[in-house]
């Protein structure tokens, strides 16, 4: 069950949070710095200039003008296509979708064009573009506005898939995405937008860019490895705290990128703990959770002390009514229960 109270998407900022950058502010800052640095970077998206749907592009049109912050029509095939073509023409486009679910209407331009054109042309073109996809449930936005569909895009060749979970990562990974010469999908969990996080000093360093393909060990532990992404990282950390009191030492791994995927950090962790739980909001069947388990089963089989487990959406659409919605999303309580059960064997 999804615990909405874990983050306060609204409400007043607590005193200690005052100097912490918000998640959406971090993305905004990354884009601002990169647009200052490189005149070829520009953005397209519905309403991004006048009334940014989740406030991520707020203020950018004022600084960079309506040519570089382009309000796009409701025509996602044309817009993603425009990004692909513009990228081939030397520009570095960033595209915002209001809800990542809407990518469903423009997948061909992404997977068969953006992702394949370099290969098909024998390396003659490159397609540096970033698509920002707000994702995830918990806002009562209904089945077609609550999904986490990265399993699709991580499956096909040629697309980098990024899942930031903190303000620091949001900023550094966005900068890396913009500087990358390949198509990059940047998934932004809507529940994270208004959260605030303490950051290290390099957050303020305009040259600090994330290295893509490095998982983060969010918490070290020796009894069980929990792999979690986006908001689930924080649910997992909360569960880990609770279990620490019971004497269970949980290691929490945040892969941060699905493509490229950091197999080494994952395998090293499971070699240490011998147990694996994977938690994600994605639909459970044929989802990214399976890939993590399969990777460990292949690469660290001998280290496994017990059957690995996974949590996710049990393959129903995310329903509208909050009580039903919360039922189908994983969260802290389910993570705790799963860990307890796995430790008791």
């Amino acid at each position, binding site marked *: 069950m999804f615990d909405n109270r874990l983050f306060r998407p609204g409400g007043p900022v607590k005193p200690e949070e005052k100097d912490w950058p918000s998640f959406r502010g971090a993305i905004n800052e990354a884009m601002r710095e990169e647009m200052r640095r490189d005149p070829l970077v520009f953005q397209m998206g519905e309403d991004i200039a006048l*009334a940014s749907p989740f406030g991520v592009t707020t203020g950018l049109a004022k600084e960079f003008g309506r040519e570089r912050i382009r309000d796009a029509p*409701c*025509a996602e095939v044309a817009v993603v296509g425009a990004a692909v073509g513009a990228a081939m023409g030397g520009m570095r486009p960033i595209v915002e979708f209001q809800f990542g*679910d809407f990518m469903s209407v423009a997948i061909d331009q992404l997977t068969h064009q953006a992702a394949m054109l370099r290969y098909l042309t024998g390396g003659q073109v490159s397609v540096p573009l970033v698509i920002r996809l707000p994702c995830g449930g918990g806002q009562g936005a*209904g089945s077609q*506005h609550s999904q986490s569909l990265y399993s699709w895009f991580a499956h096909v060749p040629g697309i980098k898939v990024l899942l930031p979970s903190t303000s620091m990562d949001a900023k550094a990974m966005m900068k890396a995405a913009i500087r990358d010469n390949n198509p990059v999908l940047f998934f932004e969990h809507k529940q994270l937008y208004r959260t605030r996080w303490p950051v290290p000093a390099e957050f303020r360093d305009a040259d600090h860019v994330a290295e893509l393909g490095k998982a983060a060990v969010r918490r070290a532990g020796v009894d069980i490895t929990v792999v979690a992404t986006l908001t689930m990282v924080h649910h997992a950390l909360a569960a880990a705290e609770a279990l620490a009191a019971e004497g269970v030492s949980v290691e929490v791994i945040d892969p941060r990128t699905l493509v490229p995927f950091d197999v080494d950090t994952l395998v090293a962790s499971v070699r240490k703990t011998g147990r694996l739980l994977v938690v994600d909001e994605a639909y459970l069947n044929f989802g990214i959770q399976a890939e993590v388990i399969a990777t460990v089963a292949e690469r660290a089989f001998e280290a496994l002390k017990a059957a690995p487990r996974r949590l996710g959406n049990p393959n*129903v659409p995310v*329903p509208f*009514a909050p009580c*039903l919605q919360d039922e189908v999303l994983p969260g802290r309580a389910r993570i705790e229960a799963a860990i307890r059960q796995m430790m008791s064997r």
Partner: protein
Amino acid sequence: MRAMLLIRAVEKAWGDAYLTEEITGIPPSLSTGQEAIAAGACAALGDGDFIFTTHRGQAAQVARGLDPKRILAELYCRRTGYNKGKSYHVTDMTRGVVGMGGIVPAQVPIAGGMALAQKMRGTDRVSLAFFGDGASNEGAVHEAAALAAMWTLPLILLCENNRYCITQRDTDALKGPSIAARAAGYGLPGVVVDGTDPLAVQAAVAEAVARARAGGGATFIEAQCERLTGHLIHDTQPYRSREELESAWKHCPILLFGERLERERILSADERARMNREIEAEVAGAVAHARTQPYPAIHEAYEDLWA
């Protein structure tokens, strides 16, 4: 008139429920200013016909005679709502109302399919798809219009041009003479109609219905109006000037039609006020009903997926 007043009252109730935090989730999208289109269109349809609504679909649901009690129960996320709390795109297949709109404008090709089914089964039923000016730039509308022309489908493509796609003005996104002007390219009749006049809309849709029933195929209608409230309830429309909004409100269909009925001595201001009080009482009753309805049980999250 009644339909338009009822639409506005139901929507107000929904909006209020959100603003008072009685309900949460995605903010309501009201069709204030667009009531005449739904009212006029539904008045031109027969019992067996089908409508496919948008994310701004309550107007058409109400105009088609759905029960405000069960509409509000759905919007209040209750299990006795039309969709059992599963989505706010209110559907009632017994009245031929298919609620859609999560993906703009996915309902249009599907309405075409419903028209195809009617044609193949030899009924004289028609299928009407609502969609917006913003939606008209999506490929789905193009493909559906071309297919309807090709297969002479009993389909009505009813574009509600409320001048805005969220913050984007229609004139910024559309460079042709009108949206209906695109119809000619498909070999379909295209009609622009005053979407603030329910009778004009009714007449245009009636003609399209007659054409479709007679086997004459599809019609593309653009009903022009003004979106008076924000895209969603919490949108205060900072991107529109005060003058623009003031002049837009002059096109309020309820105002205009009320004045006209008064002028033509069909419904006096008093009678209208009485009608409105009745409606407000009805809607207050529907809200009270919705509030008392049970939420879905947890296990219902796993129902209704597979047939």
